[in-house]
C-alpha cells in the first residue's frame, strides 16, 4: 500500500477519545487515526462538518451511537469522501414520541446534581445487564462522563433530539458498510441493526456477543477483530476467528461472492431484505388482492410499504432486480398469476439470456 488510509473515529454522546482506546491501538499499525471531538456542537450536521474538516482526503468513517449518526450525515453531505463506513450500536429514526420529556429529565439532573449523578443514572442501562455492577467497566466510563459538562450534555442532547431521519437515505449509501451491534444492546437493539443492514445495499452485519451498548469497551477485542477484518487489515487467523464468532453474511451484490456462484440462498439477510416484497406477493394468493393489484398496482404496492426501488422493480417486472432486493421466487411468482409470464421466461431474465437460448442451453430443449 502506497499511502496509509485515514480513519476517523466518531464518538457518541458524552464520549471522548478514551472510548476508542482499544480500537485506536488495533488500527494504528494500518492507518492514520483521527478522533473527532463533538463536545462543542449542538447539531448532527455541525458535528458532521467538523469531522469532514479533519481530513481533505477520502476517509473511513467509524461511528459509535451518536457518532454513527454523524457518520451517516457525513455520507449525506459528502458521499464521495467516504470510502468505507462502520456503524456501531446506533439508529436511524428521528425523535420518538415522548423522547423530549425523558431527555429533559436528564438535562435537568445534570445541571442540578452534576455529572456524577448523571453517570450513575445514565450508564447502567447502556451496559450488558449482567455487568451493571462491574466496576472495571463502570469506573472509566464514569470518569469519562465526569470529564464532560452539563452544558456539553445539553448541547449534544439538542443535537440528538433534532437528529435527521436517516432511514430514507439508507438505500443510497453506496460504499461498503459494516453494521455492528452488541447482542444485548438494550438502547439500540439488534433488530434495528438487522433492518439497517438490510436497507443499506452494500452492508454486512456483525453481532458482538455478550455486549450491551458500550461494545467498544465491553467487548473491545471482538469489535477490533471485526474492524480489522472488514477493513482488510488482517491475517488469516483473525478472519477465521471472526467468521466463527460473529455473524457475517455475504451476498454477491454486496461485493462478496455467493458461496455457490450465482445462487442466492434465502438466508436471514435476504429474508429481512425482501420481507415487504414477499409479503406483497403473498397477498396475491387472495382474489380480492389480485383484483386490487389489477385495478391499481401502484396503490396496492404502497399498502405494503415498498420503497421506490422495490416498487420500480415490481412494476417493471424486473425479476432479477426483485430477487436482488430479497424477493423469493415462490412468492413473487404469484405476480405471474395476475400478469401471465412463463417461469422459463423469468428464469431466462435472471440468467440474462434470450428465452430460446435459455431453453436450449440451460434446459437442453431441442
Amino acid at each position, binding site marked *: 500500500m502506497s499511502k496509509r488510509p485515514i480513519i476517523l473515529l466518531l464518538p457518541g454522546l458524552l464520549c471522548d477519545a478514551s472510548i476508542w482506546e482499544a480500537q485506536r491501538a488495533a488500527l494504528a499499525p494500518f492507518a492514520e487515526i483521527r478522533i473527532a471531538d463533538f463536545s462543542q456542537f449542538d447539531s448532527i450536521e455541525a458535528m458532521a462538518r467538523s469531522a469532514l474538516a479533519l481530513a481533505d482526503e477520502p476517509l473511513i468513517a467509524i461511528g459509535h451511537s451518536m457518532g454513527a449518526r454523524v457518520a451517516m450525515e457525513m455520507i449525506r453531505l459528502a458521499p464521495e469522501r467516504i470510502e468505507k463506513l462502520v456503524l456501531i450500536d446506533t439508529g436511524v429514526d428521528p425523535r420518538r414520541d415522548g423522547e423530549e420529556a425523558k431527555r429533559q429529565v436528564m438535562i435537568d439532573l445534570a445541571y442540578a446534581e452534576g455529572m456524577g449523578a448523571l453517570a450513575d443514572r445514565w450508564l447502567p442501562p447502556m451496559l450488558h445487564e449482567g455487568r451493571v455492577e462491574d466496576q472495571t467497566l463502570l469506573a472509566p466510563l464514569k470518569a469519562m462522563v465526569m470529564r464532560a459538562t452539563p452544558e456539553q450534555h445539553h448541547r449534544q442532547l439538542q443535537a440528538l433530539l433534532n437528529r435527521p431521519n436517516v432511514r430514507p437515505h439508507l438505500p443510497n449509501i453506496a460504499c461498503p458498510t459494516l453494521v455492528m451491534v452488541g447482542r444485548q444492546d438494550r438502547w439500540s437493539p439488534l433488530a434495528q441493526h438487522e433492518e439497517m443492514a438490510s436497507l443499506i445495499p452494500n452492508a454486512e452485519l456483525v453481532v458482538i456477543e455478550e455486549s450491551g451498548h458500550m461494545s467498544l469497551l465491553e467487548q473491545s477485542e471482538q469489535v477490533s477483530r471485526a474492524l480489522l477484518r472488514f477493513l482488510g487489515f488482517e491475517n488469516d487467523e483473525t478472519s477465521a476467528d471472526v467468521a466463527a464468532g460473529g455473524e457475517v453474511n455475504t451476498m454477491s451484490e454486496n461485493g462478496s461472492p*455467493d*458461496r455457490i456462484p450465482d*445462487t442466492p440462498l434465502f438466508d436471514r439477510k435476504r429474508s429481512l431484505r425482501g420481507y415487504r416484497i414477499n409479503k406483497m406477493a403473498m397477498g396475491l*394468493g387472495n382474489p380480492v388482492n389480485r383484483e386490487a393489484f389489477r385495478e391499481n398496482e401502484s396503490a396496492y404496492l404502497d399498502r405494503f410499504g415498498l420503497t421506490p426501488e422495490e416498487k420500480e422493480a415490481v412494476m417493471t417486472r424486473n425479476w432479477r432486480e426483485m430477487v436482488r432486493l430479497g424477493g423469493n*421466487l*415462490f412468492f413473487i411468482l404469484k405476480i405471474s398469476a395476475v400478469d401471465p409470464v412463463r417461469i*422459463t421466461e*423469468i428464469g431466462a431474465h435472471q*440468467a440474462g439470456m434470450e428465452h430460446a437460448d435459455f431453453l436450449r442451453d440451460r434446459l437442453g430443449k431441442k
Partner: protein
Amino acid sequence: MAKLIGGLGTSHVPSIGAALDKGLRDTPDWKPFFDGYIPGQEWVRENKPDVAVVIFNDHGNTFFLDKVPTFAVGCAEEYRPVDEGWGPRAIAPFKGAVDFSWHFIDTLIENRFDPMICQEIEVDHGLQVPMELFWGKPDEWPVKVVPIFVNVIQYPIPLPSRCYEMGRVLRQAIESYDSDERFVVLGTGGLSHQLQGARAGFVNPEADQAFLKDVADNPDKLANMSREQYVEMFGSEGAELMMWLVMRGAMDPDVVVRHKHYFVPASMTGAGMIVMENRAAVARIAAA
C-alpha cells in the same frame, strides 16, 4: 399392526398440475413424462395402500415468512387445495388420517423431534401433484393422507441427516400403530432445478440419475451430504431432494426398486420417480 408396503419418490413441479388442468398430458412436451408414471400408477392400483404419508414443502402458499416451522405435521380431517394465485385447483379435498397423525406426532416427540402440529391447514402443489401422479384425478381419493411439511426455503433449512432420522421415527410410528391399514410413504420434490439467481435453469441430469440409484442402494451417502452440497449439485431449489430421505429412512436398508423413471426438463426441472419395496417383505411374500 399397520404395515409399510412401499416407498415412493417423485418430483412435484407445479407445471405438472397445470399441464393436467390444461389437458396437455398427451402433447409432445409432456407425454413422455406422464407415460413414465404408468407403472407407478399400476403399482398403486395393485397394492392398494390405505394411507399415504406425503413429505413435501410448502412453496410460500400456506406458510408465509412470519412463521416458518422446520417440520410440521398435519392432523386435520381434511386438506383442501390452497389458492396459489390462480385460484384453488379443481381437485377433490384430501381426507386426513387423523388418528395416525396424532400417533405419529406422539412418536416424534418421544423421539426428540418437535414438529408444529396443524389441525387446519391447506396444501399446495407439493402434495397435490404427487397424489395426482400416482392416483390420477379421482372424484374421491382412495387413500387418506398425512402431510409432513419440511422447510426447505428459509435458511437455516434442516440437515439432510435429520430428514433421514425422521424417516426412521416414521417407520416406528407405522409399525406401532394398532391397525391393519397399509401405508405408503412419498418423498417428494426435486430433482435438480434452480429458479433464482443467474444460475437459474440449472439442471444436472447425471447427478439426478445417480441420486435415483443412490436413494435405493446407498442412502447413507445421501444422508451424510451437506445442505450446501445439495444446492451445489441439484440447484438452490433442488435441495428439496433431501425430503426423499424421510421416505428412505422409513424403509429397510435393503430395498428392491420396482419402478424408476427420469425425464428432463419438466418445465425447468429434472423430474424423477421411484417405487421401492423392502426386500425382506418381498421375500416373505415369495415364500408364502
